[in-house]
């Protein structure tokens, strides 16, 4: 399939899911799919910076959590959810840009970037976890420490705080956001900027020698990823009307990496399917008492790193195209960035 055909097919499929799901799912099912969509947005953020930008963030949850808390604090103070949603994207974007400047302009190696991002999310967890008590109140919003913030007001029709969204409308919002982020990332990747980003992943030295300031490109990629993760955090906080420091937890960070690794690096569809699949698996495990979810997730991660490092979507694409030797680092041919040159 050419780039345009696959893009059109994906958007059509997304619209079918967006409009069709409320017709076939009951309320409980729809609520579950809403949180899956929020997690899929988070997966896209990780999949974009890792699979295309080659940036190994182990703390994408820092931006996810920051987005969620930003939304919660802002909406409790403002009432209308319109500006809080924008802030929940803007603030993580700026924070990611700042952290990205610190890392990329410091020429920090990949493994260290992993450790630094992990440390940042641990710092946020520690700080937010210790904000119990009246002292830590921003305007009308008590941060609540490890208990988190209950009764976060839901999204409302933009500009009208008296019309909160019902569950079906919330689904439209979450799935619509997922579709929009997907379209945005496809557009970014098809642009000249996106091609340079992929080129930098392939060979940073060569890109520098061709005159590209790779630090700036990575910073922008990282900031975009931060903003998308922030949006996911906003959707998540809105879905449960609740946010707590676990959003910054290492378990959440690991989950996001698993979505992307299972679904497939260097694709956008992979992280989405990975998020839905893994979240579904977790909900199935949660419904029984036999096996612990961490045990299963950990085993999945180890097995995929050792045996299927390229993830499921590239493997399936490889089967269809009979392209031998699709492996990590060379997944560009499976990557949906094909546009006529």
């Amino acid at each position, binding site marked *: 399939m050419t780039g345009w055909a696959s893009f059109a097919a994906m958007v059509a499929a997304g619209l079918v899911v967006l409009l069709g799901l409320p017709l076939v799912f009951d309320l409980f099912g729809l609520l579950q799919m809403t949180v899956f969509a929020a997690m899929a947005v988070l997966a896209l953020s990780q999949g974009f910076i890792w699979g295309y930008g080659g940036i190994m963030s182990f703390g994408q949850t820092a931006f996810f959590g920051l987005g969620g808390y930003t939304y919660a604090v802002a909406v409790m103070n403002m009432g209308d959810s319109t500006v809080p949603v924008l802030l929940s994207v803007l603030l993580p974007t700026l924070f990611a840009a700042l952290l990205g400047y610190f890392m990329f302009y410091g020429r920090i190696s990949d493994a260290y970037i992993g450790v630094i991002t992990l440390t940042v999310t641990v710092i946020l967890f520690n700080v937010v976890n210790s904000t119990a008590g009246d002292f830590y109140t921003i305007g009308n919003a008590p941060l609540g420490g490890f208990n988190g913030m209950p009764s976060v007001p839901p999204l409302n029709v933009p500009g009208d705080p008296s019309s909160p969204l019902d569950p079906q409308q919330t689904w439209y919002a979450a799935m619509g956001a997922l579709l929009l982020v997907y379209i945005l990332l496809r557009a970014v990747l098809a642009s*000249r900027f996106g*091609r*340079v980003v*992929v*080129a930098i*992943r*392939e*060979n940073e*030295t*060569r*890109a*520098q*020698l*061709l*005159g*590209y*300031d*790779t630090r700036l490109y990575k910073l922008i990629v990282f900031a975009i990823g931060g903003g998308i993760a922030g949006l996911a955090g906003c959707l998540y906080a809105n879905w449960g009307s609740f946010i707590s420091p676990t959003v910054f937890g290492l378990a959440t960070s690991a989950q996001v990496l698993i979505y992307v690794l299972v679904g497939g690096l260097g694709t956008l569809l992979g992280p989405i399917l990975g998020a839905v699949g893994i979240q579904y698996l977790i909900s199935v495990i949660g419904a029984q008492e036999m096996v612990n979810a961490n045990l299963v997730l950990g085993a999945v991660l180890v097995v995929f790193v050792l045996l299927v490092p390229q993830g499921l979507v590239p493997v399936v694409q490889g089967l269809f195209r009979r392209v031998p030797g699709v492996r990590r*680092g*060379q*997944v*560009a*041919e499976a990557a949906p960035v094909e546009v006529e*040159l």
Partner: protein
Amino acid sequence: MTVPLLEAQGATMRFGGVTAVNGVNFALREMELRCLIGPNGAGKSTFFKMLTGQLKPSAGRILLRGRDITGAEPHQIARLGVGIKTQVPNVFDGLSVRENVFVAAARRGSARQARRITGETLERLRLTAIAARIVGQLAHGQRQWVEIAAVLAQEPDLVLLDEPAAGMTHEEVLRTAALIREINQTHALIVVEHDMQFIRMIASTVTVFNGGAILVEDDVERVMADPAVRDVYLGKQAA
């Protein structure tokens, strides 16, 4: 006196206690083709990396058309019109040949212009037939040409090639030599090489490095005839 295209003034590079390049003065005219040669460890590759911004000189200056570029970032040097091919092939292995060249051409100008330059460069290097192939799957010699194509697609004023013929078959070496002569019709070049046969094919002024300094600088035939150069290459030089 005209300003040289590229000039090194007292360029020095120390690693810990070792001085790899020691106070080298060097000048390249517009449109000149210059070869840097020397035995292993002579400092030619270190000198090359100082010119390209991959290493920051411990002392001395590098000037491009009189403008100080000492210690500039590699991407800044590239933007001033210097195209660089490194010793180890640096290509985008996961991208196609066409995409490799396109990324190089796309840094400036419109997308249409970049596509035109890409097409012309592929044609010029006879890579059009394999334009859709993934570079990681190509033979070594072809990968070298893809890299040269990418270097040329940026339309540089000065082209720096580090061992462009390394690891090539005899036919490929002949074609690369012809290509370098052709590039020299429109560009100034510096070629680092240790294969004397190859240097004879592209016949130019040669700068011989030894022990981190310039030993001689002269026309290729005279350099070849120089007993001091022969001693260096055969390892007879008394320390």
